[in-house]
């Protein structure tokens, strides 16, 4: 697993506070092809700290591609150029010797920069709080097998539920739209029998909060699907559109 080191020039976004202007700083680094891009940042930080300089602030946690904490834009691509891969799983062997990389935070009005590469994604939580659940108190559930769900439906629901909430869809979208993120949750519950009672209230509530939180609208460019580390399909967006339109047409009926 050992390869020869490759030489990279990294231009990394530095921004001390949310209001400061920010700029790229250049770091030249010899890297092992087996290291992940976050490990390269660790390494740069170790050097910076040893020299008494402020390390680069960036977020990561599981480093297994599932928690959705990390998320850098590398050469214009959220999570880098490799499809269906989170930043933490992007290894340096995917880059060529002598390459220059531009590493930036997610950019969207809804995701303000906190520091360097860290952004505030709390808008996502607000959307989920508006309706990303089945209203159901602990303790009153019937036996699990009382709810039969065809395998195909369960699989389709899981395809949508795999969203890791990283925000790459918003970062990739030229409109900073959160449609793929919201659609993933709406779809999961629109498909499953458990989600039916609140099916139409849910989509209305979640879209409302989405619109209130500075996310743009969807113009069907599908950049979100292309950059999604879990490959969540834009067919979920179509499903959400349908759900929303039907919900609006039914509003009166629901009010009774």
């Amino acid at each position, binding site marked *: *697993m050992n390869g020869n080191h490759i030489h990279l020039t990294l231009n990394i976004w530095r921004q001390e506070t949310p209001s400061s202007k920010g700029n790229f700083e250049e770091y030249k680094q010899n890297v092992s092809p087996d290291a992940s891009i976050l490990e390269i940042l660790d390494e740069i930080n170790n050097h910076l700290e040893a020299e008494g300089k402020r390390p680069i602030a960036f977020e990561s946690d599981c480093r297994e591609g599932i928690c*959705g904490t990390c998320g850098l834009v590398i050469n214009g691509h959220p999570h880098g150029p490799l499809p269906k891969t989170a930043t933490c799983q992007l290894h340096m062997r995917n880059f060529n010797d002598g390459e220059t990389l531009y590493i930036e935070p997610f950019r969207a009005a809804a995701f303000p920069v906190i520091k360097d590469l860290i952004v505030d994604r709390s808008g996502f939580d607000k959307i989920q709080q508006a309706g990303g659940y089945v209203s*159901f108190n*602990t*303790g*009153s*559930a019937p036996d699990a*097998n009382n709810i039969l769900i065809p395998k195909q439906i369960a699989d389709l629901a899981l395809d949508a539920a795999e969203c890791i909430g990283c925000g790459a869809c918003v970062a990739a979208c030229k409109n900073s739209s959160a449609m793929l993120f919201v659609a993933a949750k709406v779809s999961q519950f629109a498909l499953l029998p458990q989600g039916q009672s609140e099916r139409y209230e849910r989509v209305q509530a979640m879209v409302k909060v989405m619109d209130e939180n500075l996310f743009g609208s969807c113009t069907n460019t599908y950049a979100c699907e292309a950059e999604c580390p879990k490959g969540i399909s834009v067919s979920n967006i179509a499903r959400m559109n349908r759900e929303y339109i039907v919900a609006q047409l039914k509003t009166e009926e629901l009010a009774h």
Partner: protein
Amino acid sequence: MVKLDSHVPDGNISEKWSNHKFSMKLVNPANKRKYDIIVVGTGLAGASAAASLGELGYKVKAFSYHDSPRRAHSIAAQGGINAAKNYQNDSDSVFRLFYDTVKGGDFRSREANVYRLAEVSNNIIDQCVAQGVPFAREYGGTLANRSFGGAQVSRTFYARGETGQQLLLGAYGSLNRQIHLGNVKMFPRREMLDLVIVDGKAQGIMVRNLITGEVESHSAQAVILATGGYMNVYFLSTNAMNSNVTASWRAHKRGAVFANPCYTQIHPTCLPVHGENQSKLVLMSESLRNDGRIWVPKKIGDTRSPDQIPEDERDYYLERKYPAFGNLVPRDVASRNAKYVCDEGRGVNGGRAVYLDFSEAFNRIGTEGVKDKYGNLFDMYQNITGTDPYKVPMQIYPAPHYAMGGLWVDYNLMSNVPGLFVLGEANFSDHGANRLGASALMQGLADGYFVIPYTLGNYLTTEKPAKVDPKSNEFKEAENNVKENVSKLLNVNGKQTVDSIHKRLGHILIDKVGMSRSEKGLKEAINSISELREEFWKDVKIVGKGSELNQTLERAGRVSDFLELGELMAIDALNRNESCGGHFREEYQTVEGEALRRDDEYSYVAAWEFKQPGKWELNKENLEFDNIKLATRSYK
């Protein structure tokens, strides 16, 4: 000395929990909203607890150092969650799940707790399905199950390789609903740095706002810690980068006793370390051992590529030593043996890795057959290592994974500090000396959904719902303590980075308090850790200020706690003169080299009381086994 009363209810084991539920006192529904409850950590245990308590009407304040509860490391659990549903008609039962878990834990857990865990396991599945967790299904629409290590029945529920994610998102949804309804107030990006004890009871916490650096105090009538495990003490582990022991440890230093810190699980099927700059280890599902054969070269220092090593020069050491179980021996046995062959110098290229070879499976079920079963794992392996496992055998090595030890709790999940409850991996309660696969998710949700909502109420009936004054002396003292600690760290102004010291601690621990431990090694470890701790406080370098987002400062605080915990782990391991589960003492093995338990002397929980850094006092809770006969595990 601390009095450790487990408060296990009387009666037949199968009736303890239901009797106890009835005999516990209740809080009047109208009074519930007068109680403030603090929940620290919002992973599976914390989120499910905060949501359930919010539903009951308590005023809950939930804290997480993440930006969102959905980031908690519960999300990374792959395999599944156990329940005694017996949907497969294969003779499963609550008692069998209880039995397997106690035996898997090598008879070092508390029977009554484990029985309750098995009992509520079924409710968990019901609860999660009702929430819309998309578990795997059969074509007929019923729930699917898979088998897992340490059990002869098929009782594991799963959602592809993402069970933890789906369960956490289910609990996150319930939590979000309570936040939306105003019953839970969420405080993200806050790290708990101290516990406040007023009149001998846990009544508040100190947190640092990770964005502004401000120290905030929060008061409540009870504090619930659900802050996960401490395996990052080894520096390299399968835990997330931010996982730490700080919340538990600060509570420990305020009087909560820490139980069985030496019970650590090292998972056998992880990717080997590739270099000094590696930040974390990655787990591959244990299911790979179903079809992969583990081997190393027979010769020491054999550096030929694996395809150049002929069959008769390979040592399939697990199949050789354990003909009955072969490659499917429990986690601790598989891990230990990988260490031995690598210690001998027979690891891959003389390093620390062994082969996991599927060529036999390719011949038996074909490449397509292997792809069907393990395709996603093979892809993950190739993505990370850059080598094609369909062509070259995989390389694996054990990695620190799960902490069975944790803060001591009684049957009600309350620590020895009244009002301080501990849930999930943070407590010591259910797994004994070794945890079985698919049991961590079960325990986290059992504690949060089905235990704490009952036992917390019982405690609160003894507490007046009077507002705790966050301006009292105790709060001021705790606030000063946190501020002093932060400025102490910032003022060391030495030369070494936090990570470099953490890495050295990890090396000591994995070497001497890892898969195999000896008296000599442990004594050395105790010395070197306390020296390293001194070095840390003299020579650590932290750039930046306390009044801003400062990730180095966050890590420094955590590492300072790991440096104390590491020593306690070694002390606990030295004290336990036996081998059990994840704790293997070289002096205590059978003639065949297997773990030798010493039930007469060590059938107890070692609960350590903090005196001062480097000084602890041992308290014991004796374990009694009335329902399961103590037996030696054998996998020959």
